[in-house]
């Protein structure tokens, strides 16, 4: 039997699949990942909540509406926090990029050439550009300086590192 919560979860799953399709379509079209990720998720989240409210009213779930909305929001948020790290691993992980490069090069490469490619100035400049676009750094004539927003993030994660005793990390 389709209970109100089961019906809600089915709706959430369908809307999350719509979001994944939208996000993948955006990535394939070369859109800016972070911006497109947030926009497409916000749109599908709003549509999902509206669908849950309409379904609850249509099926006369009564007071179950509150529970349905809570379960829908929580389930969608959980799916999102599981999806995003997987996407970012594929997009930005140096280990993933190394495995893919090794495969393209016949399965083996000199260790020194991997260091030349991945511990390089180009990789550092790419990351600095990402941090500038995110508003954490600002370019200067002689280099870069950290913004107050960047400093807040740095202090927060330095605290987490100390808490877990992770050492320099990175």
């Amino acid at each position, binding site marked *: 039997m389709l209970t109100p919560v089961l019906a809600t979860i089915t709706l959430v799953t369908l809307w999350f699949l719509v979001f994944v399709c939208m996000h993948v379509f955006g990535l394939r079209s070369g859109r800016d990942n972070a911006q497109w990720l947030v926009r497409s998720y916000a749109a599908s989240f709003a549509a999902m909540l509206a669908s849950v409210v309409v379904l609850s009213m249509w099926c006369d779930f009564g007071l179950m509406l509150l529970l349905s909305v809570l379960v829908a929001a929580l389930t969608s948020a959980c799916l999102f926090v599981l999806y995003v790290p997987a996407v970012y691993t594929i997009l930005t992980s140096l280990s993933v990029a190394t495995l893919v490069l090794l495969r393209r090069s016949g399965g083996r490469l000199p260790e020194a050439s991997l260091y030349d490619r991945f511990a390089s100035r180009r990789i550092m400049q790419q990351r600095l550009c990402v941090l500038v676009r995110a508003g954490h*750094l600002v370019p200067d004539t002689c280099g870069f300086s950290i913004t107050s927003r960047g400093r807040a993030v740095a202090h927060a994660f330095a605290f987490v590192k100390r808490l877990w005793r*992770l050492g320099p990390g990175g």
Partner: protein
Amino acid sequence: MTLIYVACLIGVASAWFVTSADLGFLAQSLLIEPPWLDLSLMLFFFSAAFFGGVLQLYNLADRGLSLRILIDFAEADSRIIDTDWLIANYGNGKGLAWMYGKRIAGMLETNLVERKAEMIELTSKGVRAAAVLSAVRRFLRLEPPS
């Protein structure tokens, strides 16, 4: 981490079994029926909070390249920092090569690659993983078609 997850999972599942569904104060309209769905949802929410929350925070703090760059900026004596200084002093003075050495060590540890003389070579597990990752990256148009 896996041990912590399993131990906590057993703890929350035990708490679910020994407590009443309404916890003594919840209205009937706020109870999820049937009970198996209530338990499944609780386990899913807990797992998502662990793998998508705590574990990701740990991974970011331990391996985040961009975050480490920000921390190096925040902890540096100078206000202005250039790329050369960062390459040499990344990771509290360890340098960018140290960062990549950690990645190689991680891949060796998980048996995705092996070191043969001066070469790094994919293992059979690495070949399978690389094939899947390449296919996904090609599908997302991040790689040139093979």
